[in-house]
């Protein structure tokens, strides 16, 4: 493979998830990879300067240098306000589950 690395760019909607495998040069940055992947052509609604992205669940900067097998994820903002969801659940008398339950 030499100085090329395999990465993936992902943009996910609830009904349709798009994975773009890209072969890029070593030292390629996150922003370059997103442009190379062509995801912006298929999803023109993505506004790169204001959107947030990361690698495997961790927010990263546009100039982050990629490593082999990275998955670049283009995130969408939350619809719900976390505080509002919590308040509503409290009003309905449901306790917030403290993750990792056995049931």
């Amino acid at each position: 493979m030499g100085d090329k690395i395999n990465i993936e760019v992902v943009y996910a909607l609830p009904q349709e998830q798009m994975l773009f495998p890209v072969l890029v040069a070593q030292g390629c940055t996150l922003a370059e990879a997103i442009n190379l992947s062509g995801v912006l052509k298929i999803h023109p609604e993505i506004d790169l300067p204001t959107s947030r992205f990361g690698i495997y669940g961790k927010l990263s900067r546009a100039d982050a240098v990629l490593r082999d097998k990275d998955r670049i994820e283009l995130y969408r903002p939350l619809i719900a306000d976390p505080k509002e969801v919590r308040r509503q659940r409290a009003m309905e008398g449901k306790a917030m589950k403290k993750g990792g339950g056995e049931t």
Partner: protein
Amino acid sequence: MLIAVAILTILGLTLGGILGVASRFLAVKGNPLEEELKAILPGSQCGQCGYVGCGPAAAALAKGEAPITLCPPGGKAVIEKLAQKLGVTADLSGHEEKEPEYAYIFEDKCIGCTRCIRECSVDAIMGANKLMHTVITEPCHGCEKCVSVCPTEAIVMVPIPVTINTWHWSKPETKMEIAAG
């Protein structure tokens, strides 16, 4: 200086020799059956059997501590293979083949807590702190671990819709006729 080098060399060689001999004579033999059972299990480490992963599950199977019907995602196929390997008959009367499912996140309830992401053993959920989480359906193997950790009950399991891409010709019904012993 020369003495120091000599001492360390001798020390190194002796200790290395002892370790080498010890590893040869005191080696713990891995159970070969365990390895074979592990190869039969799906290997997705989903934990639905109650063991940490497929490795410990295989160990329990080899010791006879776990029933061969322990693996929900493996379904009938894995049960049959395990039965063959272990030479036991399986009681499939109470077995219900689970429909393949994937997780679905209700976006109006997701609060971006990343708990499900950390739980997912196949990286099928993408998202980050305080940003929308989305299930990538293709790698999701329906282990339901994310469902149980979601604090807002935003994740549900839905059956995989049968489309031209997901449809499989079902295998002919086979009967369990593997003699014991």
